[in-house]
């Protein structure tokens, strides 16, 4: 029988978690509560008159075409970011795993961009792609391709996806590489003796064994695309042209802090909150169980 140690319950455990609880309450629960409350109010910018309106802000929001559009933009953006992020970094990791000489140098170079702050990464890319002075835009114009992400929504989306990937790939790469290196050599060697080529070995052995890592990264990448790319959007396109890169989190900022529509902005963040909660539930309830470890 398992032996369990029992501690007498006193004040100590509560005192030990108290700081963590205090931080959670002050920085998470309280602001979230305020957002919930604010989402039920209509208020002018200075807060001189306030009216409690129940769910009017939500009604307005869902009647707003641009909000629905922002959902679509977010879906497209996060699918592109997560899709390309996972596949490119997996290819890079698989290649790096096979490199014999100078592997550390490759790894270091690939991980490097992770140290760049998102806003700076976006400014770098936006500058290189700037239709007037950008070196890449200039190069493309020389090749006869008219690059102007200020006007072309597809190009603007490309720009923010590239900037986001620049930051994301190193992170994914690290996890994939670690995952690949932890696969037992004996399995790979056995498959090699049975006559499986490198590609076959990758798809039948390495890839399935990486599935926990992949699912973890999928959720992390989605969260990244949903929330952490704010700085990139703000610095590179400011949501334009014609809202084609206005993702949900950018719209919250724009409506709240540029448009001073506090109630509407709070309602949007409440909806975002619900999305995060459901993403987390999905991750723990369904995906984690189905993944083969």
């Amino acid at each position, binding site marked *: 029988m398992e032996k369990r140690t029992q501690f007498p319950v006193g004040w100590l455990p509560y005192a030990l978690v108290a700081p963590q609880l205090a931080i959670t309450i002050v920085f998470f629960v309280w602001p979230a509560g305020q957002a919930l409350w604010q989402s039920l109010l209509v*208020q002018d910018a200075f807060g001189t008159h306030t009216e409690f309106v129940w769910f009017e802000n939500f009604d307005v929001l869902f009647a707003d075409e641009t909000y629905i559009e922002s959902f679509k933009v977010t879906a497209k953006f996060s699918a592109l970011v997560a899709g390309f992020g996972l596949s490119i970094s997996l290819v890079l990791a698989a290649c790096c795993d096979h490199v014999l000489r100078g592997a550390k140098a490759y790894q270091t170079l690939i991980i490097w961009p992770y140290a760049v702050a998102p806003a700076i990464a976006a400014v770098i890319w936006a500058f290189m792609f700037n239709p007037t002075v950008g070196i890449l835009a200039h190069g493309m114009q020389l090749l006869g391709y008219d690059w102007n992400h*200020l*006007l072309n929504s597809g190009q603007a989306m490309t720009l923010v996806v590239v900037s986001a990937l620049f930051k994301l790939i190193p992170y994914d790469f690290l996890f994939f590489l670690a995952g690949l290196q932890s696969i037992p050599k004996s399995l790979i060697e056995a498959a090699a003796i049975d006559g499986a080529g490198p590609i076959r070995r990758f798809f039948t052995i390495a890839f399935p064994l990486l599935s926990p890592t992949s699912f973890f990264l999928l959720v992390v990448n989605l969260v990244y695309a949903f929330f952490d790319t704010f700085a990139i959007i703000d610095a590179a396109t400011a949501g334009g042209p014609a809202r084609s890169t206005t993702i949900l989190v950018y719209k919250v900022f724009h409506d709240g802090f540029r448009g001073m529509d506090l109630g509407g902005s709070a309602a949007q963040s409440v909806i975002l909150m619900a999305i995060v909660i459901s993403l987390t539930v999905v991750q723990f309830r369904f995906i984690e169980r189905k993944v083969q470890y």
Partner: protein
Amino acid sequence: MKIKNICFAVVASCAFGAGSAQAATEIQWWHSMSGALGERVKEIADGFNASQSAYKVVPVYKGGYADSLTATIAAVRSGKAPHIAQVFEVGTATMMSGGKAIKPVYEVMTQAHEKFDPKAYMPAVTGYYTDTKGRMLSMPFNSSTPVLFYNKDAFKKAGLDPNKPPVTWDQVEETATKVRDAGMACGYTTGWQSWVQLENMSAWHNQEFATKQNGFGGLDTKLVFNTQLLVRHIAKLSSWVKAGLFTYAGRSNQPEAKFYGGDCAMLTSSSAAYANIKKNAKFQFGVSQLPYYEDVKGAPQNSIIGGASLWVMAGKKPAEYKGVAKFFTYMSSPEVQANWHQKTGYVPITKAAYELSKKEGFYEKNPGTDVAIQQLLLKNPTKDSKGIRLGNFVQIRGIIDEELESVWAQKKGPKQALDDAVERGNVELRKFERANKPGKH
């Protein structure tokens, strides 16, 4: 012993520091002027502080216009507002709806018994910031108006007279065509498209932009800029995009780089771009009046301003307001204004400063710098040309930008885009009206 000495010194210096701060009443001034403009702002504050000892104005840079407006609002909500806040023109309605949060400038001046003559100011400048009774709500600070910049060297190359810039939009078209045929990639570009091509084009042709005197008359205003004139104008520009005469290069001042970089031969943008163009252009350039349509009756009327004004926040002590009033008087003096105008390219806020600059021979030495003022003074502002005051104007400008971009990308027709902009903009106006019911304080 040594420690004791240090302690004494620290205490003494603290006491002294506090003492000297108490002697002069401190006045916080939040602004958005970065770089060289920020230095000019400091110059004005320093000049005022040196001119007397009772008050000390402390300018604080609070980020760009949008950021500093957000900061000001947050400060008001937490009871830590500055005395003076610089707010851009599209934030005017937001500030006015602040009600108890702000103190109108005319009130500040009369309560402080400061000599104050609203007529000394330029009507086209102050008009933007006065209420329907003609009372000044905020103090204009940095104001500019759109003008036409053109590349004289490019004109010469295309066989055009560099001293005869186009006056009407039809002439702009001819000129752009000739310049393009002479091998230039871009004939014309524009900064601040909503401000220049819609807001100013309406005023310049004395046409209504929004009902209720462009929003001055109440929050229940409606946008009406989908007029024949503007549809025609946007259609013209759109056809220029197709013909390669007009290149769109961004919503704010980014297109200016296309001009001084030598890509575009003509640019309509803020007159305050002058300094930057002068610094960067490696060619001769000229400044000229905003083009117009000659078949529209009454055109050109007068153009309207952009820029920012200084708002006084409520809830301060009377002594502090006295200092604010004294500072405004100092700031409006012809010398200070002329200096600010000549160094920055913004228009002076008083007529006396304009006269002074004239007397000093500034415009002869710097041809083109008076175009903006002449445009503003061209005629007495009418109800349609004294300015535009809309709630949620930041969003409305964003909507206009989006709709215009879809025209330039040839995704929408000009009429459709302007109709949509009006419809979507009106939703924003109703939202603002809903959150700021007048008289419901």
